């Protein structure tokens, strides 16, 4: 390409105020019109910092030491006023709620145009074109709060399109969305990618969707340096192991293929999509047949458990501010299971686990947890904190979605010790148990740090640690892997399996279908305040209550047992009926 690049970065180094080292360093690259650049790296690799620098928000709005240059359409980002920059580069951020400024969809799409002092007629025509493009024109008079998460992000994209800026930066636009919203946003992006001489910079961890539009990938390591830069598919294929080692995500098909490789099936080159995986397997029928024969026979992952369920709900209903949220729920949670609660946003997943754990009092019906009915306040307190019974174990540990919400002490040590102190554990024992917990969660050198000053991953580990310190028999977690990079998510899941082996029941809310298929022994499907289905994940997969992700369907049924996933093991005998449709 010989045209001048839209975006040009030279020797960029950014150091945040008060940080010990640079967040981004030695970064140089050019982006031309028509390119869709995927920015990859583990958390803390400076992806967001780089995205902010590309739009000029660093240094214009956020103070940081910047060396090197960023040039957007010929404008030096550091010296050009933000008003000029905002008509050549637009940003869509991660949090849909923090991007809505005005009171109606149309006003929001027009906001930037009005700030740029365009004439009214042009504001309206541009806003209309952008909203129509994103399928939001019919909702122009609505309050943006009434849009779904995916709708809000499409509105943010529409606002960016309206400015007509040739460079569009998206910083994890789907991280806060459910699968439906994510699909919604990706469809919108696919529609605009590569058109109208635009360049898109995309920070995204859902690589399966991103790869469909990405033409190029730039991979940053945890010191903020560019380690790979090139065509997206080639980079992911050739450097998969290095990218994994950095702790970043890979496409689901690549992860499945790696597991099959480990089981002795050579799959070359590494497939990046379900179709590629299917073709790679189809091209070597002999090896696949041999592997399927020698594979251990499919067996039920869960020998029928005769043990009584540890949580039982009968006729459970919950209302919040007199609005019914859950209706008439009958549910058993198997002891020592990893039970996932899934469903669309607003279905009542969080309310359900809170009611099961006794965090919320039901308006009707009954919950029995390990023989205790938590509907009385005193029983609830005892159940959750273990207070009032110094010797006996606390029954439930509850981890909220945002770890910060439940921090109450001023140091990490006190945070962990809190639950034990409430139970009047002798100080010597507290010191010992907290010490072990600090070690287990790699927080030893942070013992005296204020919990709010930890990194995102450390906060999450600490919040799980505070719940585990009293050795609960049940651990309830609300979206524990939300916003975690691959390495950290895997680490948490390994911990859950470890706990389960010790007899702890894990109940978690999640949107991550791969997590459900690979790790959940049981699944509860919630929609519109009702339990649609519940039972062993393998049975739900077999009965098509939970659709198998495409990547799994690409693997012949006989081989699925090699993936070592509970659900897929159970599903192997019926997959022939599902297979032909593709």
């Amino acid at each position, binding site marked *: 390409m010989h045209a001048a690049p839209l975006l040009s970065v030279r020797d960029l180094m950014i150091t945040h105020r008060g940080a010990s080292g640079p967040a981004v360093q030695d970064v140089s690259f050019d982006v031309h019109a028509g390119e869709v650049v995927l920015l990859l790296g583990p958390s803390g690799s400076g992806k967001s910092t780089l995205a902010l620098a590309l739009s000029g928000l660093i240094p214009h709005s956020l103070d940081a030491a910047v060396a090197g240059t960023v040039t957007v359409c010929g404008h030096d980002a550091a010296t050009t006023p933000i008003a000029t920059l905002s008509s050549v580069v637009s940003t869509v951020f991660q949090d849909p709620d923090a991007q809505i400024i005005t009171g109606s969809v149309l006003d929001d799409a027009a906001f930037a145009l009005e*700030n740029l002092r365009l004439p009214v007629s042009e504001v309206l025509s541009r806003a209309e074109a952008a909203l129509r493009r994103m399928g939001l024109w019919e909702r122009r008079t609505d309050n943006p709060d009434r849009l779904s998460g995916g709708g809000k992000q499409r509105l943010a994209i529409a606002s960016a399109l309206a400015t007509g800026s040739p460079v569009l930066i998206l910083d994890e636009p789907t991280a806060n969305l459910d699968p439906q919203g994510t699909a919604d946003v990706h469809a919108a992006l696919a529609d605009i990618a590569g058109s109208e001489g635009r360049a898109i910079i995309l920070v995204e961890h859902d690589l399966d969707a991103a790869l469909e539009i990405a033409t190029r990938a730039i991979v940053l390591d945890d010191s903020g340096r560019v380690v790979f830069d090139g065509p997206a598919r080639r980079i992911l294929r050739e450097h998969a192991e290095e990218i994994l080692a950095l702790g970043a995500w890979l496409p689901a098909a690549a992860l499945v293929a790696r597991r099959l490789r480990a089981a002795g099936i050579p799959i070359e080159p590494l497939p990046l999509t379900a179709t590629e995986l299917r073709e790679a397997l189809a091209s070597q029928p002999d090896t696949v047949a041999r592997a399927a024969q020698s594979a251990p026979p499919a067996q039920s992952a869960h020998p029928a458990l005769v043990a009584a369920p540890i949580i039982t709900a009968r006729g459970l209903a919950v209302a919040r501010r007199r609005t019914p949220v859950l209706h008439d729920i009958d549910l058993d949670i198997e002891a020592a299971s990893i039970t996932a609660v899934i469903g669309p946003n607003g279905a009542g997943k969080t309310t359900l686990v809170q009611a099961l754990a006794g965090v919320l009092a039901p308006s009707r019906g009954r919950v029995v947890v390990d023989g205790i009915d938590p509907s009385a306040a005193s029983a609830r307190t005892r159940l959750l904190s273990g207070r009032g019974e110094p010797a006996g174990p606390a029954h439930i540990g509850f981890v909220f979605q945002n770890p910060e919400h439940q921090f109450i002490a001023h140091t990490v040590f006190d945070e962990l010790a809190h639950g034990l102190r409430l139970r009047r554990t002798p100080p010597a024992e507290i010191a010992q148990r907290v010490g072990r917990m600090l070690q287990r969660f790699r927080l030893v050198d942070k013992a005296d740090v204020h919990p709010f000053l930890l990194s995102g991953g450390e906060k999450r580990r600490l919040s799980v640690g505070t719940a585990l310190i009293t050795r609960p028999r049940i651990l309830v977690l609300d979206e524990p892997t939300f916003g975690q990079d691959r390495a950290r998510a895997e680490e948490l899941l390994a911990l859950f399996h470890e706990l389960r082996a010790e007899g702890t029941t894990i109940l978690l809310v999640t949107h991550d279908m791969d997590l459900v298929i690979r790790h959940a022994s049981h699944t509860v499907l919630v929609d519109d305040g009702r339990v649609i289905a519940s039972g062993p994940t393998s049975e739900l997969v077999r009965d098509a209550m939970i659709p198998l992700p495409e990547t799994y369907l690409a693997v012949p049924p006989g081989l699925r047992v090699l993936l070592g996933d509970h659900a897929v093991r159970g599903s192997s005998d019926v997959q022939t009926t599902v297979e032909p449709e593709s």
Partner: protein
Amino acid sequence: MSDPYAGRSPAPAHAWLHHLNPLAKLGAVLPAMVLLLFVRDLATPIAFLALAYAVVLSGTRLTARIWAVLLLAIPGGVLVLSLSMALWTDPAQVAATPVVLRIGGWTLYTGALAAGLATGLRLAAILALALISGLTTTGPDLVRAGVQQLRIPYRFGYTALAAYRFVPRFGYELGVIRTAHRVRGTHGGHGPFARIARGWGYIVPLLASAIRHAERVALAMDSRAFGAHPVRTERHQVPFRTRDVVFLVLMLAASAAVFTLFFPWRL
């Protein structure tokens, strides 16, 4: 939480108050509201109550809720306030007036009742005047009028408007934090001190999240060129027309007439 931006359908033509400039409505009632603070008689607040009711009833799109406020909440408030203020009044000051009620050694004088009623009516009149603008103006329109007519820098106006959005969000967030802290079994105990201690514990997480949210909103606004120019295009003109001047003048004249008529506003 009510929606501060509530996208209502345009008000019908007969609801004429909705079609006036927000500043005209505010300017028409503010002087009277301030002066009413110094009024001590019964007639002046009654006159203003009547005026305000007449304006609201003739010019507002009336809903069941507004009817309830006008017919139940305000009269009920006057009654409760009058009685409680009557009990507060120092009996020595009104001992010369006739006795209404005597229970044991305690006496209720007509003077105390009148003083209580005056207070109740005064506050009701101020509230009713505020309703003239409050029931018929939306936040965004008031901000737009402030920017367009009073030349308030739009940065202030629109930032205040954006901050509106924070309120329901923080309400929700506080609820989650309280639940989360209860789960941790924090600061047991009853009574005001335990409650204060608990409340203190909510502040750090709430502030941390508030600051982070505000930063994100600010970034989103910056990236959309907010504040880049001293003025911005205004799609919604909130004009100040002849009818606004007429309304303003008439209301001020009526207020002046009432105040003159009932001077010196004493019981």
